């Protein structure tokens, strides 16, 4: 199509990745490379107690004995773990800061990214607009957490991981590593040794968290990795909705992001965890640079009737390797996974979920929408398993792939293991191509090419977008459209 070609040319002239700027700020680094002394350095920087340092060192010992896994359907050059900084932080005075003490350059960065850090700005928004609290993580440290007082009034703890280790050691000791053990996998083990910051949430019994909580992760420093650790504990009958967002500058070298997220839902608790991941995807024409997003996210539905829902919109990263999962331990507990994964240019994504049914009458639901464009590769990989005791377990899985163009690939790799005779697992999968016929039909009614693609793609992902909190759904919709600009041809 002539129209298609022109659009492609037009879009190539645009700057597709809108968050690629670098903040010029004084930063403090650990020496390059990784050894036990670096682990001690990070722990000391954070003023951690001895038990935490020992935990890290044990993880580091184990990591040395592990091999990097290769089973994912992704290709990338071997990572030189000695050629990166494991700690980078904006220079500032020690301890938690009030907003007035935060470097204005940092505040400007977040303003540019559209993240409200000033509580009054959130309050000054449209009347009736929901409030949400933000923990802002810049490279290795949390720079500010908002609305802490208001949350504390109802007993909700929302702070950086470093602060939680100092202020709430009993909770951290009890739950850290209880969902994702240090030795779980290569990247989780690495994270356990060198994690720098992340968010900590505790919601006490019976409390419905009065606002959305969110963490905004920003990688800024060059040649550094980000290893954040998030731990969310929702006590009996409590509820929280949490959102994370991620961006990074455009850089020619690859950067590693190996996070661990652990969720614990006790009896009758409910957690909604949403991710809008927009790490720098690398140069769309050459594939150079971009983030390696190797993340371990897992929820333990520990209590009966607990419920966890993962929603993810994955548009960024050069290579994505993540499977937000649910261990359905409590009887009648349920897990959900809603995913939109978009790959364009040279991006590779191998993502999906695991639903491990352990308790009786546990339910899970998986809706995955993969969109591949350009020369990218997009794989759904999922496991649904039922333990012999998980009588009456039910799963429904729907995996849809949409291909745009001729040079991309979509793969679906579902694993199903039912170890009792009373489980019902359903799996539906479709693969379709965005057709020239559909595009022409929509354009004939008056939409230009980009509007037409956006309309068709939004229709494709609608089921998942509906799961996001309203204000983020709108953002996510735009983000998906931007990620696919110039993809038709």
């Amino acid at each position, binding site marked *: 199509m002539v*129209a298609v070609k022109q659009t492609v040319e037009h879009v190539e002239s645009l700057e597709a990745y809108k968050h690629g700027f670098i903040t010029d700020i004084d930063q403090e680094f650990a020496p390059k490379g990784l050894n036990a002394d670096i682990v001690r350095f990070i722990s000391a920087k954070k003023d951690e107690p001895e038990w935490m340092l020992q935990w890290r060192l044990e993880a580091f010992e184990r990591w040395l004995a592990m091999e990097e896994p290769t089973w994912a359907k992704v290709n990338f050059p071997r990572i030189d773990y000695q050629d990166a900084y494991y700690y980078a932080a904006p220079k500032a005075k020690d301890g938690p800061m009030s907003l007035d003490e935060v470097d204005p350059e940092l505040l400007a960065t977040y303003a540019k990214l559209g993240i409200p850090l000033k509580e009054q700005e959130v309050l000054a928004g449209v009347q009736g607009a929901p409030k949400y609290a933000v923990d802002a993580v810049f490279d290795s440290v949390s720079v500010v957490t908002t609305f802490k007082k208001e949350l504390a009034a109802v007993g909700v703890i929302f702070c950086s991981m470093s602060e939680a280790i100092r202020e709430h050691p009993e909770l951290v000791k009890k739950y850290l590593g209880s969902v994702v053990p240090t030795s779980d996998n290569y990247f989780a083990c690495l994270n356990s040794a060198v994690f720098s910051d992340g968010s900590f949430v505790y919601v006490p019994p019976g409390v419905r968290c009065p606002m959305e909580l969110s963490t905004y992760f920003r990688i800024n420093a060059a040649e550094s990795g980000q290893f954040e650790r998030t731990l969310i504990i929702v006590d009996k009958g409590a509820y929280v909705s949490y959102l994370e967002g991620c961006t990074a500058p455009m850089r020619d070298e690859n950067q590693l992001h190996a996070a661990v997220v652990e969720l614990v839902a006790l009896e009758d608790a409910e957690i909604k965890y949403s991710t809008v991941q927009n790490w720098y995807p690398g140069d769309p024409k050459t594939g150079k640079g971009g983030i390696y997003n190797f993340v371990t996210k897992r929820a333990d539905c520990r209590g009966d009737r607990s419920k966890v829902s993962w929603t993810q919109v994955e548009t960024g990263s050069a290579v994505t390797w993540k499977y937000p999962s649910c261990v359905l331990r409590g009887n009648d507990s349920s897990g959900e996974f809603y995913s939109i994964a978009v790959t364009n240019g040279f991006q590779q994504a191998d993502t999906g979920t695991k639903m491990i049914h352990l308790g009786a009458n546990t339910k899970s639901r998986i809706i995955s929408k993969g969109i591949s464009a350009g020369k990218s590769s997009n794989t759904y990989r999922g496991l649904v398993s039922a333990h012999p005791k998980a009588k009456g377990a039910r799963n429904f899985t729907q995996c849809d792939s949409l291909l745009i163009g001729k040079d991309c690939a979509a793969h679906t790799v579902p694993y199903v293991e039912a170890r009792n005779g009373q489980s019902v697992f359903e799996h539906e999968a479709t693969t379709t191509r965005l057709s020239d016929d559909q595009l022409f039909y929509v354009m004939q009614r008056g939409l230009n090419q980009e509007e037409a693609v956006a309309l068709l793609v939004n229709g494709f992902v609608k089921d998942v977008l509906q799961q996001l909190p309203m204000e983020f759904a709108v953002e996510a919709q735009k983000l998906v459209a931007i990620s696919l600009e110039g993809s038709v041809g």
Partner: protein
Amino acid sequence: MLSINNLRASVEDKEILKGLTLDVPAGEVHAIMGPNGAGKSTLSYVLSGRGGYEVTDGSATLNGEDLLALEPDERAAKGVFLSFQYPLEIPGVPALTFLRTALNAQRKARGEDEIAAPAFLKLVREKAAELKIDFDMLKRSLNVGFSGGEKKRMEILQMAILQPKLLILDETDSGLDIDALRIVSEGVNAMRAPDRAMLVITHYQRLLDHIKPDRVHVLSAGRIVASGGPELALQLEAEGYDKYASAA
């Protein structure tokens, strides 16, 4: 209004339209009839700007404006509407959303304000009722799981909302039973207006019993080989296209 002069067009280097000339004045309905492979659908696609069709010679203008240089969406904003022989399914996009998005896109392209939601809903309710379309159906994804007749009615509804200047109906009768044909034809007839031209492309005469053309043209091997009044359609029905196939 629509003026086509010596139009030549190819698909994958194969020439389909071989010097087609046709004028449709405002307020008139012209039928294009012809055997399979004559170039009927190609004509509708070339006029509406579908990719893959290369115009090698000639011109096509609407009210004096060159259509061929425009993108499909620009032509739509100028008032070109093609009712598809096989309307496409658009999963996840409710018909109502689709209608409003299309109408606003066209208005924007013409430099007009977007239509307000209450006015839009009133308009849709009114037009849907005329076409006997249940309003709840408009909350479903466009054309997904619709019957052939429902899809064609949705095409006419889009037409009624978008109020185009040039209507091209491509084999609108295909797949319609007699009741659906009547409803669709009434919808099309309601669109007749002094400032609007219609091009009705059909293989069979039966549609023309319902939509009475002012002129009938026979398209064969990429050219108009005969033109006449409505009686020409009846003659074709009786005698077939053989004589024109050899004349071409």
